[in-house]
């Protein structure tokens, strides 16, 4: 797999807004962003109400995902181009989620909404509707999703990559600083985890750094052991999807999982070890 298979540039996106078989999908944390202006023709996915089960703490199941994509007008053969705010955090999360359910052709728009806006490219407020499809998902590919027991077992044996900011890693902050800090769980990080903030993988305009820079960052500087499997985590699994994308999709590291339970789950578990400080 190469970078061109998984990332598209803003120029490519602009040239392919009306290409048959290409569907643009915006995914944001602030789900009102889409309504204020989106890429022309893009449909909206709400990560909280549409990608999460509304009762259990888990993803929607295969049948729900099939119904969702069918209603959005996304077909199995479509190339899905994902983008969003927060430097593509939730778009990367959706990318990983589409891969989890086996969608074949998914790409991220490099730089997401931010680069698009900084470039002064056009946004549309027109409502978008696509004819419904009959989407078929695969069973979840659990080779890319980690659960809590595997994470505890990975302490000291696999690469654990904590992609939160240094202040969250150390326990000084409990959430990214655009959110209130009072939380129920403890602060800190999983013992033996490397701290490689997701932001180090991105340029200031939100685009991904080059493969050479990424390799240098994770392997040479942070000491990621490429002979071992890797689990990435953050607070709720969205920033770690960004890092999962960098490691698994851009660098081609074979065994990388995203722990979507992340610190909100781990930091609330009874009896597990926690480390504080840098």
């Amino acid at each position, binding site marked *: 797999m190469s970078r061109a298979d998984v990332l598209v540039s803003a120029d490519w996106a602009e040239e392919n807004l009306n290409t048959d078989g290409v569907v643009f999908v915006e995914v944001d944390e602030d789900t009102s962003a889409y309504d204020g202006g989106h890429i022309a023709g893009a449909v909206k996915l709400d990560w909280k109400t549409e990608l999460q089960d509304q009762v259990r703490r888990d993803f929607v199941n295969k049948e729900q995902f099939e119904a969702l994509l069918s209603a959005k007008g996304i077909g199995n053969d479509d190339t899905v181009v994902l983008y969003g705010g927060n430097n593509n955090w939730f778009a990367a999360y959706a990318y990983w989620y589409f891969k989890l359910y086996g969608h074949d052709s998914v790409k991220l728009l490099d730089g997401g909404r931010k680069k698009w806006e900084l470039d002064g490219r056009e946004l549309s407020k027109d409502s978008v509707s696509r004819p419904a499809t009959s989407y078929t998902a695969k069973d979840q590919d659990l080779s890319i999703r980690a659960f809590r027991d595997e994470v505890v077992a990975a302490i000291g044996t696999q690469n654990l990559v904590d992609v939160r900011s*240094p*202040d969250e890693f150390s326990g000084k902050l409990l959430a990214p*600083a655009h959110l*209130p800090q009072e939380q129920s769980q403890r602060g800190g990080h999983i013992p033996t985890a490397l701290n490689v903030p997701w932001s180090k993988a991105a340029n200031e305009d939100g685009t991904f750094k080059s493969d050479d820079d990424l390799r240098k960052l994770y392997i040479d500087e942070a000491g990621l052991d490429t002979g071992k499997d890797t689990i990435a985590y953050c607070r709720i699994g969205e920033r770690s999807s960004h890092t999962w994308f960098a490691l698994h999709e851009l660098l081609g590291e074979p065994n990388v999982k995203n722990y979507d339970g992340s610190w909100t789950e781990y930091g609330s578990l009874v009896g597990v070890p926690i480390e504080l400080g840098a």
Partner: protein
Amino acid sequence: MCGAPAQTPTIPTGIDLTKETVIYGVVSKGDAAVPAAYVRLLDSTGEFTAEVVTSATGDFRFFAAPGEWTLSVMHKDGNGRREVSAPEPGLVEASIVLN
């Protein structure tokens, strides 16, 4: 639109300002507030901590912690940067004018 900084930020209900350190302000250029500017909060080592987009009135807000911080702003019409000291929890106003 008035370019004067908001005197108090919009804070969600239930936020305890004796515990939260809220760094807030308005991004402006000339006399006008700048919506859709990307504001980054960097920690005392210059490392990225969070990023928000300014509202229609140019407002931004972070929930940080006591310490030394830097704000860095990107917008298609200009950039800006300033340092912020937050000695204790509470409100810290830190508006930014784009160059």
